[in-house]
């Protein structure tokens, strides 16, 4: 017997709408939410065009411009976000 029998009609409709997200309610907001992922990746892209930080010339470790370090961190963050994207949105 499938779980659908035990759902209220509204929940059944919701489950159909969001692609079977009921089993893991806590992560529903990350699943099937294309707009959210577009906003997340769009924000990362905008953070990489840091025009508000353009004039900064501080060096870290005595040789690396701080905005280069920032870009490296953003790229590591991008990898981490793609990892989450794969888990929650890009399923086989």
């Amino acid at each position, binding site marked *: 017997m499938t779980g659908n029998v035990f759902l209220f009609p509204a929940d059944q409709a919701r489950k159909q709408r969001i692609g079977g997200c009921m089993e893991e309610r806590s992560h529903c907001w990350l699943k099937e939410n294309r707009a959210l992922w577009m906003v997340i*990746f769009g924000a990362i*892209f905008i953070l*990489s*065009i840091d*025009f508000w930080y*353009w*004039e900064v*010339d501080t*060096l870290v*470790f*005595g*040789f*690396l*411009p701080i*905005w*280069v370090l920032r*870009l*490296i961190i*953003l*790229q*590591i963050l*991008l*990898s981490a976000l*793609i*990892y989450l*994207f*794969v888990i929650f949105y*890009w399923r*086989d």
Partner: protein
Amino acid sequence: MNATILVLTIITSYLSLTILLGIYGYKVSEKSIQDYFLASRKIGPLVLFFTLAATNFSAFTFLGFAGEAYTQGYAFYGVMGFGTSFTALSFYIIGRKVWILGKEKGYITPPELIGGETKSHTLRMLYVAVMVIFTLPYLAVQPMSAGFVLSALTDGAIPYFYGAVFLTVFIIAYVFLGGMRTIAWTDVLQGLMIIFLLLTAVVVLAYNLGGLQVAHERAMAENPGLFVRSGTITVKTWLSFSVLWSLCNPMFPQLFQRFFIPDSEKSLQRASIMFPIVTGLLFLLPIMIGVMGRGAIPELSGQEADSILPMMLERYAPLWLSTLIMSGGFAAFMSTADSQLLTMSSMFTRDIFHPYTPFDSEDFDYSIGHIMVVLLALIGLAIAYNPPATIFTIVTWAFTGLAILYPSTLGVLYWKAEAKACIISILTGLTMLLLYQFEIVPDFGFLPAIPIVVTSGIVLFVSHHTIKIYGEL
């Protein structure tokens, strides 16, 4: 040992490894075009990642980055790094759909997919034309770079063109023997070589210059502008490059075709996760070498700056080590050239010859594919023999030219865009490219790629809906 013999011994040892992989690839391969061009769509996650990454690391990554950093400093890292890392999202946006359609319908080349989905032979041919025109000169750049490097390493004992021929012969041999499977395996070898040898170069050069900090202080004393962006690059240019790399990288036919080869969607996902970190960190290495080079050898100007890496190695590392590191440069040239060669061969075979041959024979396609690998390599070599001045212009414009295909590709994959709308969009983009080439239209401070791709996208949208509403034009 004589310097020329030492250089040839090290380079030939590495190249022999690629031939061994070619022979092994030939032994385990099946005699089919699916296997020759796509390794039977059975490439796992690690090999897939390396073949996607190494294909993206070209002669320009190894020599050009250091040269540009010598002139522009760390600003060039921002121009190249993040946009390329962002390409990883295209593995989902473009790659996933391409992988699914390729598996379902047996597509082998990018134009075959586009033509098949839109049922338009004209659009298919337009994709072939754009991809070949903008890739062929880029193919010639790889043996050219190899020729220059070999000539420099041996103080001219090996002339430029002999070096180019030397590299091309090895590439033809292993691509001819093993096709995509061997290329993917050599990409693992070449990718690892590029990463470890560039890292070794940074460590050795920094050590011999008194440490990273001292080497950078010398560069700072020479030109403080190497460490800041204001005055070197504008926000609009930075933004333009980030967008350009994100759009044009997946449109390179050799990268596009790689979306057909994963054994599963998981492989594509894992490659997508690894791509930003590895490219992001790898791109930093030649940039650091270029900046340190400015402090150590400050008097270079113009195109001389592109030789900063071999010059630094010649001055601060023993010959055997500098040759070993420059064999990483060979790996970068080869990992791009072999993929371009096979992909172009597949397009000539499947998109140009196959539709016009009177018989539908896989054996015929298989033979033509092999012949085209040799022919195209020779054409690349012929261009490298006496490169016309325009080759560099075409290469410069190749990225924008290929980015023009992005809106249409998205349209076909997601919205079943009308073939005629795609054709109008691509022709509009190409016309704008010509107008920019002759500086007839203003660029508003952006790279031409931005207004061109935006306009192509708008034209696609408008013409698609016009055709839908009013029927055939």
